[in-house]
């Protein structure tokens, strides 16, 4: 019983807002010294285009497994935060994985399993490729890469600004929730009914917390808006020279070429194997 208590306590502790905030920051900026983070964002975006699209159109198991292994390696290289990986596993499982499991348990044969396995592999490969790019690259690099391909400046600014604001928002949210926790009076939750009531209470509090959250954030952003004006954000958006300066800091290095050729080689090998089988 005590172990169970401890477990539930530590799990609750882990999904605190503080933990979420930490994971978001870790995800965005905590892995800027990895191999993936040092790559050129333009090259990675092309790379992503391939691994994000091709798997949907190929049904060959060997090829899919090959791709899956590759993106699994890149995900490892990108040192993606634990929470994101957990979400990935949950996502894949809720999409197709559970079907695969159910089929296995209820004695489905290979003919039923194969298509499900293919689908699961596809989803997993595409997701991991996305995770590598969007979590391995820091938001600014990603934004610059997108801008090179002609995405509007506003989009790229929004990406990096969102990452700048997110921790603030979560901190604010946490403070408001703490106020509820200190002053509120949640229902008793020792028995089963109580637990359900407690859950409902929690959800209610989270919804209520949005009102002060929004107002507090709005109050804070008044200064930010003025500062953006002073700092020339509006001028930069229409100034071609600024874009050029921003683009000039991206360079394709040997590492990028090496990474691209290794990926290409790997894919070719898997294609070769898949034709032999």
């Amino acid at each position, binding site marked *: 019983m005590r172990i169970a208590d401890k477990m539930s306590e530590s799990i609750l502790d882990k999904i605190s807002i503080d933990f979420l905030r930490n994971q978001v920051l870790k995800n965005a900026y905590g892995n800027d010294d990895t191999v993936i983070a040092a790559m050129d964002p333009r090259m990675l975006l092309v790379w992503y285009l391939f691994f994000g699209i091709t798997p949907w159109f190929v049904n060959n198991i060997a090829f899919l497994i090959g791709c899956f292994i590759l993106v699994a390696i890149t995900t490892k290289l990108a040192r993606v935060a634990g929470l994101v990986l957990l979400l990935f596993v949950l996502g894949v499982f809720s999409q197709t994985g559970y079907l695969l499991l159910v089929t296995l348990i209820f004695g489905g044969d290979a003919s039923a399993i194969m298509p499900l396995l293919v689908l699961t592999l596809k989803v997993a490969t595409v997701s991991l490729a996305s995770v590598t790019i969007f979590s391995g690259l820091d938001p600014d690099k990603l934004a610059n890469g997108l801008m090179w391909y002609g995405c509007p400046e506003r989009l790229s600014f929004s990406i990096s600004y969102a990452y700048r604001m997110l921790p603030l928002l979560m901190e604010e949210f946490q403070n408001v929730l703490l106020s509820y926790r200190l*002053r509120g009076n949640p229902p008793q939750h020792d028995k089963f009914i109580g637990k359900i009531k407690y859950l409902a209470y929690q959800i209610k509090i989270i919804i209520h917390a949005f009102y002060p959250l929004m107002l507090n954030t709005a109050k804070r952003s008044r200064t930010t808006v003025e500062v953006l004006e002073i700092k020339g954000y509006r001028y930069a958006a229409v100034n071609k020279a600024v874009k050029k300066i921003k683009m000039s800091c991206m360079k394709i290095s040997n590492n990028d070429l090496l990474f691209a050729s290794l990926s290409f080689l790997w894919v070719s090998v898997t294609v070769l194997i898949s034709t032999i089988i």
Partner: protein
Amino acid sequence: MNVIEIERLTYSYPGADYPTLKNITVQIEKGDFLAIVGNNGCGKSTFCKTLNGLIPQFISGDFSGSVKACGLDTKENDVGVLAQKVGYVYQDFENQIVRPTVLDDASYACLNYAMADYKERGMQALKKCGLTGKENDYIWQLSGGQTHLLALAGAVSLEPEVLILDEPIAQLDPMHADRIYGVLKELNEKYGKTIIVIEHHTEYIADFCKHVMLMKDGEIQWTLPTDEALRRVDELQECNIFPPQVTIAAHRMQKNGMMSSDIKLPTTIEDGKKVFFKKSDAENIAAKPLNTDGQTVAKFEHVSVSYRSVKGEPHTVFDDLNLDIRKGDKIALIGSNGAGKSTLMKMLVGLLKPTSGDIYMNSKNVRTFKPEEMAKYISMVYQNPEDMFIKDSIGADISYSMQVRNIEESEKRTQELLERFRLTELKDRDGRLLSGGQMRRASLAIGIALNPGILLLDEPTANLDIATRKEIMRTLDDLKSVTETVIIATHDMQLVCEWADRIIVLCEGQVVYDGNRDDVFSNQAIIDKVGIRPPEIFSMGRAISPEMLCYTIDDFLRCFDGEGLTKCV
């Protein structure tokens, strides 16, 4: 040469019935270090926003007259062009940082104005502001003082002629505050920048500024050299500005004949040494000894705690902390920014669990409490009152904790609290829209709604102008009789000296000292180690006679005489 030339400026905000700035004509000379003083709402910030063109270009409204900054008319030139002449650092400077890393933020404006050498400019600005070596840090790794320096660097990077800072040190501990002013002084003297600060802290004005401008009700009363300005004690106090304590003390001496009225009032401790003398019969009044036999209401036993960090090892805040808090204690918790004051408070209310060790509340382990049970024993008021407002009116906020507990007469008690904190007329307003002092009072009322035995206050006087601060200090004195045990975390040494019976000094996660005010403030080693800046009047007394401990101006007048004493007292 004048960098700012204003003629007959009148301005009212959109929809306002009366003008915020009235018929202002003023010149500011190049190379000046000017302090703007005036009570809340007199138009100081509005005035400064007209200097960089935010008014009338970005914030519209009724604008007449002309403002020229470095020869450019602010009505005809873009905010962008003006920004390269006039830099602005906001009071809520953390909202001024828009980029995730230090160098990025410092060079962001230069990049936006398409300067090819934007990185070098950013580096230069960081160097001028003393942030070299931090270029690649993320902004959330910076302390409050460093964040302020970064906001300053962002403005400096464009190499403007004029720098405006709105209350630069309101949220900082004395060490960081000294550093900010050190940087400003260098920018002023070495790089010839014109500095304009909105400032309440007259000791800093006395030490650093060349001129003082007094604003009252949207008009400029006068601009005078600092010494002369600070000597106008009555006029300043009328506008809720409090001249340096040394000046006030001398002024009072002159009034009751303890000092010749021919003497020029001193504005700094150096000046003070020449005009004050210790009375032959002066004696210290010993501070109240620590209460050692009271019942222990909270106890830390071998507590260690660490935070997760984005990268690398968790950051340890406390390691093996032991502390007893006794019934009736009035504790001030002091230490520099980041010493662990807020962490200690969060652990006491159970918002943060220690990594190891135990905390006891009335001899019961805090781990066994549910958060809602804790509320009966202990309550906390945040540094940022906005976070306390979870309802849409302060009346509802105050009654919330009582209503959810179905406490009888919660209505009546809410009424009482509103009355006690003079909020009755404001009870239907949203807390966020109140003034600084009202917000603070509302948050105190929320904090004691459940009548807790222990009350924790995080920086209750930060960010307030001196008049509001005095008012809050009165409220805190009043609280002494309502709540048995109160702990205040603060940088405000006047508050510490006048209010606390027990002072706990934190430094790098350790309790380095625990004693009454005499113990702490006469201990030079501790003062130097932690970077405490005692109230000016205290330093004044000790500068003349090291064994004297005068915490307030009244103490000082009791122990010291002035030059040219005219009447025997």
